[in-house]
C-alpha cells in the first residue's frame, strides 16, 4: 500500500525547507524499515512553504509476527520426574505458549528448556500513530517557536493541518493539536480557503496541482527557470543573470510560481552595478538582467507566487517597479551624500568605530594594516614583484574608511567594494581603488582572491592583523565558536598565498605581524590546520597525499599544492605504489632500530655509507642507483618538475625490491647492520623532499 503524510504549516522560512523535507523523508523511511513495514523503498518527498510531505510505496498493512527463541532454566530445575514444575510454568507463561509446547535443547553447559515465543505484529496504523509524532518532533530547525498555550511543542512555524493516508484509510496521527485526516489546502489566493480532500495517496500531487500548488520542488524550480527564460525573451538582447541561490530561494517561497519583467529608469545605471544588484537581489529578490555585453540592463525579473491575469500582471509589475525606484532613490541619496566627505577625511572618523575593545578603533587597525602591508610589500618587491608601494600605502590607510559611509551602513555586505568605488570616483587611481575594493576577498573558500598584487597584499595584511591581534588576547577560535571569523581570515590568507604570484610564504606573513613567540607558535599550528583544510577541501586532495606533502614542507603552500598535484598524478602507478610501500618499510625498520637502541640518528641527517661494508651485490646496486638518482631528482625538484622527479624516484623500484629480497638489514654484524641502516636513511632523506611517501596509503 502507499502511505502519504503531509504536515501543513504557516509559511516556513525558505532557507530551512530543503533540509527539513529530506529529513522527514529519511525519518519516515527509517521508521518504516525499523518497524519491518517496508522492505525496499520507493519513496518521494514534497514541500512548499506551507507543507512538507512524503509518499512511500509498498508499506505493509501490518508487521509479520515475530518468532523469538528463548532459553529457560535447565531441564533438571524445570521438570521433576518429567512433570513441569513452577519454573517451567513461569517460563512458558513468559514466552506466551502452553507448557506442553516447551522443548529441550542441548548446550555445552547441559540440557535446558527452550521456547519459541511469538510476538504478534502490530498494524502499520498502530505503529505510525505511536511513533511518527516523535519523528516529527525531532526534525531539526535552525530556529523554533512555541505557539500553543502551555508550550506543548516547538516547531518552525505553527502546524495548521495533518494528512495521513495508508491506502485509502486515514491514519489518525496526532501532532501540534491536530489529528490527521484526508484534507489538505490549496493556494491561499488562487484556490482559496476550501479544503481539498485526498482520496488515495497516489492522487496527492494531481489534486494539489488542481488547487494551484506544485508540491514537487524540482517541478517548481524548472517552472521558474523556464519562466525566467521566456519572460526575458520579451526584452530585446537581454538575458537574466544566473543566480542559483535566488532560484532556490524563490522555489521555496512559492507554491504556484510565475515571472514578470519590469523596468527601471536607465539613469540609475550611473550608480555602481554592485549597489543596483544588491538592492535587486538581496533586498527585493529580483533577478538582474544584462545585455549581450554582460552589462547591467535597466530591467528586473520578479518571481511571483500567483498566476496573474494580464491586468493583474500590469499592476504587480507597476508595484514592484515603484518599490525598486524608491530603493534606488535612497541609494542615490546615500551615494551623493557620502561624496560630501571624501575617504581621506573619513579616516579621522574611524577613531569612533571600534574594531575590538582591547585592540582599539578601526583607525588603529588601519595604521597596523599599513605597517604590515608595507613590510610584506617591501619583501615582495625585493623579490622582483612589480608593485606600487605608494598606492599600497594609500589603500591601506583608506581601506576601512567606507565603514563610516551611509551607503555601507545601508548595504553592509558591500563594505570594501563601496570604498573601492568611492576611491575610483574620488580619482585616487585604479591601483588604490582595486586594492580597497578587493581587500575583504576571498569571502569564502570558493570565492575569488583579489585581482591585483596590491589588493592581495592588503587582504593579507588585514586578515593577518586580525588573527595576530585576537590570538594575542587569547581569542582564538574553539570548536564551533569563531565569533571573529578568524578561520575564514586564515583560509583567505592560505588561499591568497596558494593562488597568487606573491613571492611570500606563511612564515613570513606570521613574522611580519610582529607577534610574540608564543602567539607565533599558535598561529603556525592554526595555519597548518588551515593549509591542510585548503589542500583537502579546496584542492580536493586525498587525506594521505595532504599529510605526505605537508610533512615534506608546509610553509610554501603554493609549492605544497603543486607537489600534491604531482603525487596524486603518479600515485596509482604500480612502481610508485611499490616504492611508497618500500619507503614505509624503511621508515619502520629505522624506527624499530631506534626503539631498540641500535640506531640513534633518526632518519636525518643521514650518516655516510661505507661502501666497503656493502657486502651483497643488491645493496651495492641500490647504493649506486640511489646516488645517481639523487642528483637527477634534486635537479628536477629545483625546476619544480615534480611529476618527473616522482617518476624518477619510482624507477628505483627494482633495486629496492632486490635489496629487500636478498638482504637482512638487521645483520648480526654490528658494522654491516649500521651501514645498511645508514643506506636506508640516506635513501629516505634524499627522496622525501617532495612528499613523505611513507604517509601514502597503498593497497594491500
Amino acid at each position, binding site marked *: 500500500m502507499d502511505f502519504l503524510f503531509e504536515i501543513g504549516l504557516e509559511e516556513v522560512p525558505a532557507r530551512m525547507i530543503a533540509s527539513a523535507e529530506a529529513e522527514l523523508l529519511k525519518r519516515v523511511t527509517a521508521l518504516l524499515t525499523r518497524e519491518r513495514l517496508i522492505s525496499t523503498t520507493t519513496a518521494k518527498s514534497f514541500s512548499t512553504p506551507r507543507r512538507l510531505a512524503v509518499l512511500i510505496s509498498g508499506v505493509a498493512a501490518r508487521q509479520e509476527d515475530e518468532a523469538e527463541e528463548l532459553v529457560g532454566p535447565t531441564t533438571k530445575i524445570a521438570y521433576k520426574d518429567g512433570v513441569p514444575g513452577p519454573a517451567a510454568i513461569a517460563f512458558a507463561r513468559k514466552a506466551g505458549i502452553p507448557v506442553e509446547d516447551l522443548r529441550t535443547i542441548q548446550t555445552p553447559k547441559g540440557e535446558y528448556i527452550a521456547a519459541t515465543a511469538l510476538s504478534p505484529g502490530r498494524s502499520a496504523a498502530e505503529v505510525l500513530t505511536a511513533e511518527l509524532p516523535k519523528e516529527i518532533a525531532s526534525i531539526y530547525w535552525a530556529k523554533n517557536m512555541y*505557539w*500553543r498555550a502551555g508550550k506543548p511543542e516547538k516547531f518552525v512555524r505553527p502546524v495548521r493541518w495533518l494528512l495521513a493516508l495508508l491506502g485509502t484509510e486515514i491514519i489518525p496521527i496526532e501532532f501540534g493539536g491536530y489529528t490527521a485526516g484526508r484534507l489538505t489546502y490549496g493556494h491561499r489566493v*488562487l484556490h482559496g480557503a476550501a479544503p481539498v480532500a485526498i482520496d488515495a495517496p497516489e492522487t496527492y500531487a494531481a489534486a494539489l496541482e488542481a488547487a494551484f500548488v506544485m508540491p514537487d520542488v524540482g517541478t517548481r524550480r524548472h517552472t521558474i527557470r523556464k519562466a525566467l527564460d521566456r519572460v526575458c525573451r520579451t526584452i530585446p538582447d537581454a538575458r537574466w543573470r544566473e543566480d542559483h541561490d535566488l532560484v532556490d530561494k524563490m522555489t521555496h517561497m512559492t507554491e504556484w510560481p510565475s515571472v514578470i519583467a519590469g523596468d527601471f529608469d536607465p539613469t540609475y545605471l550611473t550608480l555602481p552595478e554592485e549597489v543596483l544588484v544588491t538592492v535587486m537581489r538581496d533586498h527585493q529578490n529580483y533577478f538582474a538582467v544584462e545585455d549581450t555585453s554582460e552589462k547591467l540592463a535597466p530591467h528586473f525579473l520578479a518571481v511571483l507566487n500567483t498566476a496573474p491575469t494580464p491586468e493583474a500582471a500590469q*499592476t504587480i509589475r507597476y*508595484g514592484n517597479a515603484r518599490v525598486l525606484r524608491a530603493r534606488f532613490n535612497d541609494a542615490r541619496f546615500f551615494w551623493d551624500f557620502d561624496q560630501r566627505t571624501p575617504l581621506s577625511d573619513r579616516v579621522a572618523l574611524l577613531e569612533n568605530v571600534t574594531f575590538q575593545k582591547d585592540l582599539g578603533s578601526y583607525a588603529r587597525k588601519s595604521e597596523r594594516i599599513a605597517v604590515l602591508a608595507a613590510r610584506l610589500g617591501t619583501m615582495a618587491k625585493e623579490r622582483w614583484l612589480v608593485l606600487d608601494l605608494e598606492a599600497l600605502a594609500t589603500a591601506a590607510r583608506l581601506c576601512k574608511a567606507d565603514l563610516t559611509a551611509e551607503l555601507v551602513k545601508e548595504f553592509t555586505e558591500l563594505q570594501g567594494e563601496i570604498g573601492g568605488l568611492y576611491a575610483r570616483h574620488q580619482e585616487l587611481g585604479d591601483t588604490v581603488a582595486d586594492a580597497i575594493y578587493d581587500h575583504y576577498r576571498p569571502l569564502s573558500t570558493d570565492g575569488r582572491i583579489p585581482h591585483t598584487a596590491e589588493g592581495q597584499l592588503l587582504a593579507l595584511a588585514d586578515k593577518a592583523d586580525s588573527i595576530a591581534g585576537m590570538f594575542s588576547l587569547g581569542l582564538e577560535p574553539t570548536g564551533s565558536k569563531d565569533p571573529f571569523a578568524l578561520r575564514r581570515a586564515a583560509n583567505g590568507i592560505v588561499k591568497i598565498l596558494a593562488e597568487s604570484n606573491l613571492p611570500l610564504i606563511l612564515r613570513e606573513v606570521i613574522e611580519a605581524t610582529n607577534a610574540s613567540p608564543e602567539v607565533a607558535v599558535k598561529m603556525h599550528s592554526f595555519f597548518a590546520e588551515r593549509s591542510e583544510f585548503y589542500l583537502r577541501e579546496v584542492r580536493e586532495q586525498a587525506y594521505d597525499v595532504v599529510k605526505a606533502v605537508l610533512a615534506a614542507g608546509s610553509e610554501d603552500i603554493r609549492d605544497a599544492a603543486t607537489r600534491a598535484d604531482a603525487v596524486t598524478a603518479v600515485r596509482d602507478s604500480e612502481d610508485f605504489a611499490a616504492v611508497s610501500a618500500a619507503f614505509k618499510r624503511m621508515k619502520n625498520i629505522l624506527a624499530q632500530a631506534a626503539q631498540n637502541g641500535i640506531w640513534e640518528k633518526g632518519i636525518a641527517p643521514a650518516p655516510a655509507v661505507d661502501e666497503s661494508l656493502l657486502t651483497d651485490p643488491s645493496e651495492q646496486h641500490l647504493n649506486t642507483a640511489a646516488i645517481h638518482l639523487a642528483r637527477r631528482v634534486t635537479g628536477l625538484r629545483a625546476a619544480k618538475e615534480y611529476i618527473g622527479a616522482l617518476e624518477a624516484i619510482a624507477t628505483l623500484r627494482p633495486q629496492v625490491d632486490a635489496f629487500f629480497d636478498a638482504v637482512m638489514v638487521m645483520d648480526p654484524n654490528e658494522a654491516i647492520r649500521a651501514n645498511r641502516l645508514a643506506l636506508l636513511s640516506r635513501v629516505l632523506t634524499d627522496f622525501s623532499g617532495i612528499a613523505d611517501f611513507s604517509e601514502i596509503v597503498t593497497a594491500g
Partner: protein
Amino acid sequence: MTAAPSKPLTFQQLLFTLQRFWADHGCVLQQPYDVEVGAGTMSPDTFLRVLGSKPVSIAYAQPSRRPADGRYGENPNRLYRHTQMQVILKPPPVNIQELYLESLVAIGIDLTQHDIKFEEDNWEWPVGGAWGVGWQVMLDGLEITQFTYFQQCGGMDLDPICGEITYGLERIAGFLQDVDSIYDIVWAEGFTYGDMRLAEEEQFSAYGFDYADVPSLWKHLELFEAECLALLSQAQSFEKMDALTLKRFPVLGAYELALKCSQMFNLLDARGAISVTERVGVMARIRTLVVGVAKAYAAQQTAAA
C-alpha cells in the same frame, strides 16, 4: 471577504478601516500611547500586556519616533516619525493569517490582483530582552507589515505567546494611493500628509541632528534613569506590601521613565554624541531598566493574583 472599495482610502480612512476591522473581530481599540516610543511594540499595551497568561485582543495606532531616520522632510521615503498600526492577539487565533489577509481586502487590496508573500523576518529588541519569529509581508515587492509571534519579553518566556501584526500605515497609504512621496499621501479630502506633518519633520530633524543640547540630554537620561532605578529597587519588596500599596505601586510609571531614557538615547545617537564604545554600555543601562520593569510588572501581577 468584503468587496474592495473603488476609490483608494485616505490616510485617515485607512486607519478607521483597520480599526473597524479589528474591532469587529473582537479587539479593544486603544488610543496611541502618549510617551515617545520608537515602535508600537514599546507601548505598554504591547510590551507589558504580552506578559502573563491573561488573554489580550487590542489594536491601536502608534506614532513612532526614530530621530536618526529624520531627513528634514527631504527624503520621500523616510520619516523621523511614522505611524504603526499595532494589533496584539494573545493567544493568537489559529486563523490569524487569514484574518490579516481579510484586513487587507477590507482596505481595498484585491488579493487576486496582487502578489503576496510571507517572507521570513524575525524580530528582536535586545534592549527589551524581547524577540519573536515571523515574517515581513511583501505585497508586490513592498514590505507592508511585520508579523511576529512574540516568544520572549523582558528576558522571560511568554506563555501563551502572542501574535503581533504591525502595519506600516504610510507605506500602505502610499501604495493604495500610488504616490511616490509620503508627503503627497492624501490624509483627508483636501489635506495631504505634507500639510499635516512636513513642518514637524523639518523641525524635529533639525532638533535631533543639530539643536538638541547634548549635555542636557545626558542629564535628562541620568535623571530618568535614577528615578526608574529607585522605583525598581522598591519593587524588590512586593511581598511586604499590603494589597492596596501593591496595586498602586507605579510599575507603569517606572516603564515611562525607562521609555524616556530610550528616547534620550535615540536623540543622543542621532546627534552623533554616542561613540561606538559608549554605545554598548548605554544600551546595557537601558536594558537594565526595561527588563527590570518587565520583571517587576510580572512580579506585581503574580503577587496581586
